[in-house]
């Protein structure tokens, strides 16, 4: 028996990653959707669907033909061929040889069957294939850390395993969701040339037009980082080396490539060679034996060895039987056709539809939001949306942007990216998708707008937050402006993206169309709702040339100006330089300071403009304010009073245990200046800062009560040294210092 056939068929691969580590799979082909929905199915229909999925994913029709009348459908179309035209740039001869010899061993779960009869044949094929390719354009070396972040953030881990170095932190008190879906192995990434891997990641569809590895829109830099991450354990220098084998060996390999039927699934140096494939004997699935050839437990002769396990063989048999007996099997309903498409492309890894699929809970923790305001969108913020009514929702043009074009993503707060699958494989399903999601009762909307140009004016008014507005901008941004509150989908591209009928359906009853949406039923029950929908549509169509709705934020309107007010302003906020319990003091003479009520000390002084309250007053994300002026001076990080054994003893650190500082609040004097009150052990302290002199500076007054000998004071200027406090007989003392 040839070497390649002697590999133990029960060889099991193990995913060694994270919480998903427990999921093992056989070296049999790993089609994720099959493992997820079909392997344990007892329902014969589900089983046949699983078999059909295997037939497309193993590309049975690459070699077989089907003569049953009426049974020709794209459901069993040949997969677009994987290009090996540049394979020699990606992989070394040795890597190709070992893979061809025992695909399932080298790349567990691969759909590539073993076709060679000996290591000699494998070597010849490798020699030929390694000769294909041209020099790869260099890419940056890439950062492993950046690559790790991108790999886990953009959605790779919907299908592939998270790295062992990026496990989700255990959340206290929550049992981790069980991982049940095996990951798609990363294949030969570790053996790729670095630049070739990066180039592959940028445009995987150029090599694999079947779209099973979609394009995530990585830039060169991102792709180099991800490649560096995927190859993080590879030590060897993998500068591309051009391989030139012996011409006669290359010719032998090329001849094998044709005669072994590789061209059923691959295209190499000469597309015309595909023609020779038609000369191959094609077994007819209408009459073929179901337990011989590829479906035999131990395939004999030259049958390709897919390393199928019994469940897979059984599912394939059931599907073929179904093809033979059920003339509708390959002429599915539109709904079923969408399901099959989503299974083939593994849309289910990210998206749910009809109660099936969506990101597996064990992986959901990797899906993040990029805008903290989106956390309160719940799963809608970080997880890709369900595709329930998508066929009647999106325009054809937008489908095109999403599936093969540019700029289709509309959720800027979501870290995961919608990948591209390629036009060739995805466009054919769109008609069925639209059909499947069609409403029983059609909705009509007048989008002509032209005779009703004033509708645009009304639509703008409805969008705003002024009287009579619906406040759409509370959640939806428009053009370059963020929403006032949570960051949901910006509305600028609405008319390009949504079919108007869907827009109307959604607005009239959001919960019915998108169960779980946070959108209130703003228009429901309004007597003029139908017209108002048309007004909104008209405005959104003209939004690029029209005024923004009233109420969208503009910075600058919320600047606090004590000089205009003519008296001091005391303002609590999160503040750069003074922390989360900052109390800022702005004075009309343009000298400002902030007290940190958490650390109980003066933290920062500055001059000129005071603060902008916009983020504190208006923005849900509550971004910290920052001093607007200049001469921003961070005061030294010590507190002002300590009990020391001597003046030379070390001054306690800010977070030192021991003397407790208790912040007690402040009171505002008749001049509007606050005095801060706190306790330090038995000492009661009033701490006040006032502008001092004409040219700038502050006078700080620290009044103490309850004092006893042994207390030291250290001023709030750099270089200030401790000095002992002298109390009067009543235990009082008043200290002053001048801050620059």
């Amino acid at each position, binding site marked *: 028996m040839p070497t390649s056939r002697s590999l133990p068929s029960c060889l099991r691969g193990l995913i060694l990653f994270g919480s998903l580590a427990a999921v093992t799979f056989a070296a049999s082909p790993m089609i994720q959707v099959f493992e997820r929905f079909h392997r344990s199915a007892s329902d014969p229909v589900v089983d046949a669907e699983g078999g059909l999925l295997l037939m497309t994913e193993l590309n049975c029709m690459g070699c077989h033909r089907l003569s049953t009348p009426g049974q020709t459908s794209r459901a069993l179309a040949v997969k677009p061929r994987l290009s090996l035209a540049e394979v020699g740039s990606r992989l070394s001869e040795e890597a190709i040889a070992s893979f061809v010899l025992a695909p399932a061993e080298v790349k567990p779960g691969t759909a590539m069957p073993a076709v060679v009869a000996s290591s000699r044949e494998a070597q010849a094929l490798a020699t030929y294939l390694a000769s294909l390719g041209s020099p790869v354009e260099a890419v940056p070396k890439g950062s492993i850390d950046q690559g790790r972040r991108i790999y886990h953030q953009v959605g790779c881990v919907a299908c592939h395993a998270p790295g062992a170095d990026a496990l989700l932190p255990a959340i*206290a*008190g*929550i*049992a981790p969701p069980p991982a049940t879906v095996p990951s798609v192995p990363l294949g030969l990434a570790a053996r790729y040339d670095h630049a070739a891997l990066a180039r592959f990641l940028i445009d995987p569809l150029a090599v694999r037009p079947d779209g099973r590895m979609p394009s995530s829109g990585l830039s060169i830099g991102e792709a180099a980082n991800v490649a560096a991450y995927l190859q993080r354990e590879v030590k060897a220098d993998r500068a591309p080396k051009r391989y030139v084998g012996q011409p006669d060996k290359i010719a032998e390999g090329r001849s094998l490539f044709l005669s072994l039927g590789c061209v059923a699934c691959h295209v190499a140096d000469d597309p015309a060679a595909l023609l020779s494939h038609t000369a191959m004997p094609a077994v007819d699935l209408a009459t073929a034996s179901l337990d011989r050839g590829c479906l035999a437990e131990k395939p004999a002769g030259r049958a390709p060895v897919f390393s199928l396990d019994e469940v897979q063989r059984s599912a394939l048999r059931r599907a073929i039987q179904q093809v033979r007996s059920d003339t509708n099997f390959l002429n599915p309903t539109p709904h079923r056709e969408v399901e099959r498409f989503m299974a083939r492309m593994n849309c289910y890894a990210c998206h749910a539809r009809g109660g099936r699929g969506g990101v597996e809970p064990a992986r959901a923790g990797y899906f993040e939001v990029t805008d*903290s*305001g989106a*956390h*309160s969108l*719940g*799963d809608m913020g970080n997880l890709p949306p369900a595709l329930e009514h998508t066929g009647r929702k999106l325009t054809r043009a937008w489908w095109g942007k999403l599936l093969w074009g540019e700029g289709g993503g509309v959720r800027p707060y979501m870290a995961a990216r919608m990948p591209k699958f390629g036009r060739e494989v995805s466009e054919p399903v769109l008609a069925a998708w639209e059909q499947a999601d069609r409403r029983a009762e059609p*909705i009509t909307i007048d989008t002509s707008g032209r005779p009703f140009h004033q509708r645009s004016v009304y639509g703008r008014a409805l969008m705003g937050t002024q009287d*009579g507005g*619906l*406040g759409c901008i*509370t*959640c939806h941004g428009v053009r370059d402006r963020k929403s*006032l*509150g*949570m960051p949901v989908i910006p509305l600028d591209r609405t008319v390009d993206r949504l079919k108007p009928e869907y827009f109307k359906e959604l607005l*009239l*009853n959001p*919960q*019915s169309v998108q*169960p779980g949406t*946070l959108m*209130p*039923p703003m228009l*429901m*029950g*309004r*007597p003029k709702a139908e017209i108002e929908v048309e007004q909104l549509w008209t405005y959104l169509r003209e939004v690029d040339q029209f005024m923004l709705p009233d109420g969208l934020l503009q910075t600058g309107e919320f600047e606090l100006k004590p000089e205009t007010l003519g008296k001091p302003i005391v*303002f*609590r906020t*999160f503040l*750069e*330089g*003074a*922390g*989360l*319990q900052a*109390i800022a003091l702005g004075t009309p003479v343009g000298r400002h300071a902030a007290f*940190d*009520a958490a650390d109980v000390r003066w*933290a920062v002084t500055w001059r000129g403009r005071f603060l902008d*309250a916009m983020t*504190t007053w*208006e923005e*849900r994300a*509550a*971004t*910290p304010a920052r001093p607007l002026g200049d001469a921003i001076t*961070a005061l030294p990080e010590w507190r002002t009073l300590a009990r020391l054994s001597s003046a030379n003893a070390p001054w306690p650190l800010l977070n030192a245990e021991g003397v407790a500082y208790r*912040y*007690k*609040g402040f*009171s*505002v*004097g008749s001049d509007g200046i*606050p005095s801060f*009150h706190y306790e330090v052990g038995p000492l009661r302290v009033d701490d006040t800062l006032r502008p001092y002199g004409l040219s700038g500076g502050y006078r700080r007054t620290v009044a103490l009560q309850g004092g006893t000998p042994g207390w030291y004071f250290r001023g709030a200027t750099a270089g200030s040294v401790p000095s002992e406090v002298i109390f009067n007989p009543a235990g009082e003392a008043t200290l002053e210092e001048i801050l620059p």
Partner: protein
Amino acid sequence: MITRFPSSHPALTAGDRRRHAGWVRLVAMSLAGSGLLGTARSAEPTARPVAYERIPYTLPAEPKFEVSGIAVLPDGRAALTLRKGEVWILENPLEDPTKARFSRFASGLHEPLGLTLHKGALYTTQRSEVTRLEDRDGDGVAETYETVAKGWGLSGNYHEYAYGPVFDPAGNLWVTLNVTIGNPAKLSGHRGGPPLWRGWAMRQEPGGDLKPVAAGFRSPFGLGLNAEGDVFATDQQGNWWGGCPLIHVKPGRFYGHADSIPDTRRPESPVQDPGTLPQGLTVVEAASRVPGLTPPAVWFPYVKMGQSTTGLVCNLTGGGFGPFERQVFVGDFTLSQVNRVFLEKVDGEYQGACFPFMDQLQSAVLQMAFLKDGSMIVGESNRGWNSLGNRSYGLERIRWTGQIPFEVQTMEARPEGFRLTFTEPLATPLLVRPDQFRLSSYTYLYHASYGSPETDTKPVEVRSVKVSPDGRQVELLCSGLRPGYVHELTLAPLDSITGQALRYDRAYYTLNRIPRPDAVSP
């Protein structure tokens, strides 16, 4: 300024009522997977006297009156916190609402979300502390901003709202704290560490320090007392909360949200570590599996009874607010409404029913309080999220006109079902039939995902009805009651002896416990 509900005619119009009924019906239908524009029968009557009217105040152009806390002063004026950090006094809340006078009392606070009068001074909760405000020189403006309680953690994440305070009859101060959702602020000068006690209720005894009391909250906006002086909190649907709850806050209890669990392991924690939480169980199953997990006293079924509960207030007006004395009223942000709650104790634990009360408010309801004349003042702001009431903020009154509305006044659990007490006797008590009362029960999933559909729904059979001799009470004898489940009641059209139709035909009882026959009065 007020265009939508002119004060000259603030009452519900027939159109308003139809609109209200229509949309509630549609939402209910959409939940059931129904179509776009249904035509189900409305429960609204054709005509009825108006029992409650809404009276919006005309507000100054500046500042934005995003009212987040209300305290009614002994002289009848109403003190209001605004979210931007100020306290204003509404000088004449009972006079012409178009001539409302406001004066600023305090400023520069950090997002205060509650206001209470205690021993003659105003107390508000800012993001990092409870502050006592005092006007010592009598010029109408506070000079003293005294920190009276602090010590919980902050990371600078926007969601770390802090609510309260309230003072219980023993003089203890209570606050509730949101969990952190999302990332900490990126901020120089801030020394981090995981923020302490997020998702907890905290209590400070007079003269003592603030201490953790109960855990498992998510976003417990509402904090207040019921008629007995017990402390209650509302929370928001989201992760770990399938719907919005009303919770009786008891020391040592864990109410369900996981983010507070790490702090249960601190020595100061009075709450037992509930251990690793299961996922995907129903709330009812989880309550029996998770140590210390206490279910809420009342669930507000999602969408049907609001989408995000906010402030709560107990009606102790001595009849000034109509026939709902000693009942609790709870605000809702998204649907801009006020709901009503009847509470009773069964086996020593509170449970009860919620009822719709007043919708179509101007903006997201945040807080309510009762004015001197027994009318309710409602503070509103929808900044950050949207609300059905599409003004950005508002302040209005809900006044009882003196007309008795025909409603289910109370819904009590009985050993074999429920006892409904109506505000007026039924018109035809002898003709009341079991099929006029449709009951079903359901619960929610307990899990880290956002929200939950109604789960494990089953019909409850109403076998027979018993009507009291005075025609005001109907006892429903049922089969299939399930402890722990929300029992949803829908009433057929019923008329009162005065010819009124039911104002609302729905009630939702959270039947945590079924009373034992020997524990109830006949």
